[in-house]
């Protein structure tokens, strides 16, 4: 089988200890469930000298609501997000997204923090060193060219996290902690459109928590995932939506995000829809998404068909959000 490059494994039991290790070792990476990092290490995409494990940090595994916010600890398991009573009640779209990540075993290893920090993916990069060498290395690792956009200078590997678009539509932010600092970054600003490294997290920082404004009564939400099989598939397209209607049943607010297309999960601009009927707003949102989103060959699935699916999945997400029980 493919082997792992050698590394030193550290198992801190507190966040401070973990931060100290990060500060101490230049060439260190965090590992939680390892479901993303370990295959990438086997493929030669990462070869850190030190791994700092977050598995011993049980203090970061929690879900709770306080002071008008829902707080989700970074090492909360994906499966917990899918099953947790608070998440299912207050953030049902997040539970839906979590339940559709990978398969049962991986959901019990993978964490929320890991999914939010998931490395971008591309059919030309998530391959063995041998395969990438035979093709010619690309600009995400070891090379200078892009095999997706032939003359491209920027990496377009796809953001493939299912939880991110949901949390973006909910206005979530993440808490990043380093040895000397704690900062809070809105998730929409956490991601940048660079497939080589698509987040603003520093090498010395740990994503410790996601904070979501408690959804107000009447806010509807849904997540729709396009994939080729029913499990163990990254999104070929992920669509998250939150919306609310006014007393007359007209659209009041809508937030729409997509993932699985470009280097970062993307908010779809839907500024002009307040006050429209649901049918008008749905059709308009679908049109906006179709115009603003352009699937590439970074995923092994027909980009034309994926593009065609965008408006359909937007409509389905909205329809399902509205048909879910009101809170």
């Amino acid at each position, binding site marked *: 089988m493919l082997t792992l490059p050698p590394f030193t494994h550290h198992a801190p039991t507190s966040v401070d200890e973990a931060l100290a290790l990060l500060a101490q070792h230049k060439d260190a990476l965090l590992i939680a469930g390892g479901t993303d990092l370990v295959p990438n290490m086997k493929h030669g995409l990462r070869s850190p000298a030190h791994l700092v494990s977050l598995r011993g940090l049980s203090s970061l595994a929690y879900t709770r609501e306080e002071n008008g916010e829902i707080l989700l600890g970074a090492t909360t398991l994906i499966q917990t997000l899918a099953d947790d009573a608070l998440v299912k009640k207050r953030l049902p779209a997040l539970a839906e997204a979590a339940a559709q990540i990978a398969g049962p075993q991986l959901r019990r290893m993978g964490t929320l923090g890991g999914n939010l920090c998931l490395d971008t993916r591309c059919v030309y990069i998530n391959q*063995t*060193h*041998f*395969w990438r060498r*035979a093709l010619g290395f690309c600009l995400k690792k070891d090379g200078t060219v892009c095999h997706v956009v032939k003359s491209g200078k920027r990496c377009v590997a796809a953001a493939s996290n299912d939880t991110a678009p949901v949390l973006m539509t909910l206005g979530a932010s993440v808490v990043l902690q380093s040895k000397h600092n704690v900062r809070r970054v809105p998730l929409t600003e956490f991601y940048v459109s660079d497939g080589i490294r698509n987040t603003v997290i520093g090498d010395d920082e740990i994503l410790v928590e996601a904070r979501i404004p408690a959804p107000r009564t009447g806010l509807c939400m849904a997540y729709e995932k396009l994939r*080729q*099989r029913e499990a163990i598939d990254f999104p070929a397209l992920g669509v998250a939506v939150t919306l609310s209607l006014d007393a007359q049943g007209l659209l009041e607010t809508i937030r729409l995000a997509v993932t699985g297309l470009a280097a970062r999960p993307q908010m779809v601009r839907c500024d002009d829809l307040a006050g429209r009927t649901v049918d008008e707003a749905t059709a308009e949102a679908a049109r906006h998404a179709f115009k603003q989103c352009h699937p590439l060959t970074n995923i*092994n699935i027909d980009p034309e*068909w994926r593009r065609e699916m965008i408006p359909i999945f937007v409509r389905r997400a909205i329809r399902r959000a509205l048909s879910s029980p009101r809170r």
Partner: protein
Amino acid sequence: MTEEGKDGRRGVSIGRRQRKNEGRLKATGAAMYADDLRLPRMLFAKTVRSTEPHARIVRIDFSEAKKLPGVIETLAGHELPERYGVIPWTQDEQALCVDKVRFVGDPVAAVAALDERTAEEACALVRVEYEKLPALMDPDEALARTDVLIHDERGANHQDNLTKRVQLAFGPVDEKLAQSASIAEADFFYEGSTHAPIEPHCALAQWDGVTLTVWSSTQIPHYVHRALSKVLGLSAARVRVIQPVVGGAFGGKSDPFSLEFCVAKLAMKTGRPVKMLYTREEVFYAHRGRHPMKMRYRVGLSKEGAIEAVDSKIVIDGGAYASFGLVTAYYAGQLLTGPYRFGTYRFDAARVYTNKPPCGPKRGHGSVQPRFAFECALDMAAEKLGIDPIEVRRRNFVGENTETVNGQWITSNGFMQCLESVERASGWRERRGKLGFGRGLGVAGSMYISGTAYPVYPNQMPQSGVVVKLDRSGRVTVYCGASDIGQGINTLLAQIPAEELGCDPEDVSVVAADTDLTPVDLGAYSSRVTYMCGLAAIEACRKLRAQLDEVSEATDPFALRVEKAEAKAGTTLVSSGAYRTQKLGADYRGGTIGASPAYSFSAHVAQVSVDAETGLWKVERIWAAHDCGKALNPTLVEGQIEGSVYMGAGEAQMEAHTVYPENGLLRAPNLLDYRIPTSLDTPEIDSLIVESNDPSGPYGAKEAGEGPLHPAIPAIANAIHDAVGVRLTRLPFSPGDILRALRERKC
């Protein structure tokens, strides 16, 4: 003890549901697969593979690799130049490429080191200089080009890229087509697929200075034995091959593979045991999966629906080596001539070399692709006549104790019961056409061989041998060369003595697939094992049974019976049995290929749902009826039916083993990108056993491991047509293709 039936069967074990005898070991993790074996001082080897699809090897430089601490030995192709190949007439493989490479992933060199990681790192340090050659990715182009030869070593008679072309005609096809009331004419394309066994290939070799022992995850220990002897230049009497527990094969382990020769040679060079385990990616390069086929079919029906003529032209994309390709070219035509009577038949099949991983036998070798095309074309032709798809199949039933248009002799035939069974179970009559737009039912039938009369290398010896030894403790030991690859032959080899001798099946020890200890069996391919080993085991057991019956009553305790018989015989109680190849088939050249002592028959009804907005579709349920002659262990037969349906449905839904044409790299060399269905993508499967009690098979049994795969794909295709009115002719059926077809239909 129940009364003895006229077939000699008592029903104490045969026909009963019984656990696999290695099931507990597998479930608890105690089973020893090849990679679980460790020997003192063992080295790990890895393979250096070609990064070019087609190139001359100019130079291989090991100097940097040799400097890496922990590297013990290296190996290059010129050290093992002898060509081999499972089919004696097309031996075109070498353990490691000598002069040129023929696909990305072709093995070029090997390195042995103290540990796997070091061997992997060393491989990346081996510098191979290539001189690029034009690469041929399309079989039609490869046929047309004679200026680029993928195998230029084949001599003056082979100045082309053809592995084998077979053209056979039976009766006046053109005349009958001209007279047909309805003709379906269409092009079909089967995209290549691979086996994806969960256990990757693994081999371990030990050399003691005289004898070579190789443990390998193979399904053909006997052919590996012969190939090792040939390539290493050792007497076969000094080579031993052992097959440990195998974690899936499906035809993907029925060739000798590079790693078996490499570990053997490296063990001989170093004097230390050497192991090699393929990575998942290497399993995709080793491949031998189902061939891509471009197929053109013409099927003509009389106005009553009788099949007057079938005409096909098939181009088979073989990949870089022959493997079983010669047989593939025959099977693509020869195995289609049941369960229906063909008035006339003609086929022209060409198996072509391309610069891609080599194709070979995958479950339902050679015949799954034509079966897909034909069963769709049959529906198309019948639809024009307004004949129900089940009805047209019934009207064309070939019958039993009869000869097919190409001269194969059919003994038992339970196809009509299969059709009836799926028709009833699926509610075909009441439900078809009434499920609404987007949901549909489709049917297909098929036939498959229970082994072939033709051994892979011509010889007069038995195809299978069994030795049974009785111990005075009451323990029975069965020795057989057969490969259990999950299909359950080891369990059956315990059931047969239980049936014949009256012992407890748990008191039977099965020693299998070890060339030192067991009589030869040719291997687990062509669905031959239950039929042939079964008959051999019965023969061996019946000799012992006569000895037991002579001195004791069937009601006596078994150990006592053995004791009495051994005292009487004055020697250890041992007997042997064999399956001797029968003369079968027709007289024309190729008439014996596809000739089988007994044929199995299957019929499926598939129910699908199609989302016409997205093209996403699902197989909801498959009713699969299979005539296995006699279900010797119904649980195992159902397992084979379910596994077959699962595999066929996966090929229809999503499986595609393809390369980028511009560089020859595999698009999906891992199990994330090469999608096989998960349990959630798998339809409900109703396994319906039909027993036609074949007069020649063991207790009436025929095969069950490959036949039930065939109808799955066309039944699904026909169901999609029923659901949304589009006829898909390219596999796999992607949602995008369905949408495009729906759009074209509207236009």
